[in-house]
């Protein structure tokens, strides 16, 4: 069976009438880890939310396909069931809904109504995933993200990824706001999920998570476009030379070139 393929082509996206993505092209396949890096405000989160179908982002041009299927024609929930996952930078707090109940509902949404996930099977899998992420089992019965610390929310996102087993996962700043131990735990969780049936798109501002999850490809996004792509060494260059280097050296070359 062929692995998944997410193809983003010449994507243009507006937020509140302002163009943020200006023709972004990127393909992620199963087994690959792509890192998308860039300074704040260049469109990284816009890319993540557009892939998932956030109502605030209007696609004005280009396409996104998953295994050739038009993602942009699907509603958010259908995208998720087709195999897309977004670990949010700021996950919502959902009062009154326990993490366990939420996850079970999400799993059952992927199954035949007559064949819901068995409770024992679900609990075992949940307990196992919680152990991988060093999450206290008591979290399953807490209301989703309510009163969670920043680190707990991020771990909860990865927990959901481990249970829902997406084919393409986009992790939006999964490392931001975490101390180094938490980054390591989250990264180990991400690493544990790697395999030919999962393609990962890691959106990050910092290089540090890439010490734990080595990317196959690194893309630098600036002003709504990919301005440079390369191997893992590109992240190291970026780390040592900083984003000023992107601004000074890469952007004039791009902006100066004919569209």
């Amino acid at each position, binding site marked *: 069976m062929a692995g998944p393929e997410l193809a983003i082509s010449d994507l243009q996206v507006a937020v509140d009438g302002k163009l943020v993505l200006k023709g972004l092209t990127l393909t992620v396949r199963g087994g690959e880890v792509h890192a998308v890096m860039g300074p704040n405000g260049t469109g990284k989160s816009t890319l993540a939310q557009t892939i*998932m*179908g*956030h*109502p605030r982002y209007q696609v004005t041009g280009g396409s996104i396909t998953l295994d050739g299927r038009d993602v942009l024609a699907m*509603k*958010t*929930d259908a*995208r*998720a*069931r087709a195999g897309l*996952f*977004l670990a*949010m930078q700021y*996950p*919502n707090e*959902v*009062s*009154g*809904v326990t993490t366990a*109940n*939420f996850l079970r*509902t*999400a799993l059952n*949404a*992927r199954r035949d109504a007559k064949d819901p996930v068995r409770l024992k099977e679900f609990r075992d899998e949940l307990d196992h995933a919680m152990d991988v992420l060093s999450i206290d089992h008591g979290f399953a019965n807490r*209301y989703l993200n309510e009163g969670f610390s920043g680190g707990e929310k991020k771990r909860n996102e990865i927990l*959901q990824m481990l249970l*829902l087993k997406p084919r393409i996962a986009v992790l939006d700043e999964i490392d931001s706001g975490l101390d180094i131990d938490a980054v390591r735990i989250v990264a180990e969780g991400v690493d544990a999920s790697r395999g030919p049936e999962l393609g990962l798109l890691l959106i990050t501002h910092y290089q540090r998570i890439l010490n734990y999850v080595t990317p196959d490809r690194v893309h630098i996004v600036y002003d709504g476009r990919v301005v440079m792509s390369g191997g893992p060494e590109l992240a190291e260059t970026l780390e040592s030379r900083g984003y000023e280097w992107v601004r000074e050296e890469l952007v004039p070359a791009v902006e100066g070139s004919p569209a």
Partner: protein
Amino acid sequence: MSRPELLTLPDEPTLLADRRRAARELYEALPVPTRPRTPLKARRLEAIPYREPASANPNEVPAALRSAPESAGHVVLSNGHVVSCEMKEPARRAGVKLLSLADAAQQEANLIAKHLGSLVAADTDRYTAANAAFWRDGVLLVVPRGVALAEPVTIVHWVGAAAAGIFPRTLIVADADSSIAVVETYLGDPADSHRVLVSATTEVVAGPASHVSVSALQQLPPGAEAFLRRRGRAQHDARIDWATAEFGAALSVAGHHTDLAESGASTTSHTVTFGSAAQHFDYDAEVVHIGPHTTSDMRARGVMSGRSRSIFTGLSEIRQGARRTDARQKEETLMLSPDARADAIPSLLIDDNDVFAAHAASAGPVDELALYYLASRGIPRADAIDLLVRGFLGPVVERIALPAVQDRIWQAIESKLQEERGRGTL
């Protein structure tokens, strides 16, 4: 003479018959009540022939409702008449009395004379007066001093297909140091949309250090116009816990009122409302702190869909001398439709200065960002709203101490959600 003869019970004691006649005079004199946000006149309640006494039709009551295995005692009323009244051995042995009000009028004449109508006054409004004038039956529950029943007493009020007016009364007298839970359910065939006026009263006399828990689930059929008045009086160190759920009827003007009459008395109340289509709920939750060191905690959560309308008026009154009291209330509404409307009106009336009192009210639509988050995990919109509704009502339902009542309320929420799905509003 244009007015029909007022029906009394067979051999009704003179005192009761006199009160009934007085209530009848009040009823005739009182206008259709004016409620600021509930235009009662426009509902043409007087077009319902409710003065004609409904007779019992026990065969209409579904078999599943006729017994309640996990009850200390179970009473079934059909159209306001007791058709069965059973009490289990432990309660009987402990000296608990569970009687139809018609029987109690004879057998417990003094108790009835003393307490019936002592809390819900006949002159409250026209439909309370109608209840005091036209009642045929009801329930008397007496719990002796020091008796604690582990299981609740359950009362089913079934509204039948031919009834026009139903006027049951419940009187609970808990003696000192006793403990009792009562669960009243008001229901009928959900497919029966004929108009019927239901005016019911429940009175709770909570003796010193007693603990009375009253739950009331209103799941009346869609043609019902209901007036449900409940009032309790808590003596020294007594506690009254209310759990009320408003799900059925076309109109429900309901409420509960607690007098914390003496020091150390306390009350909690949890109200869950789920309105759909054109349902109209007008609920009053009131507590009056009279004694010092009394506490009250009132919480309500409602979900409103379709063109439904709810008014929740919470009142915490602290009288002079009720020092060191603690009064809290919180009302929240989740709006599932832009055409639904909810007013939460919390108020505090404070006449002592050594007190703690707090109130809060809020109403808002379903959080679209939360829906997006749930959708991003593959949960379809209808299921996500379902999850959010349960999540919204859960914290109040789960504070209700009786697991059996929690289950009943969850079932009622479940059927409302099914209804909403059927209408395509989710």
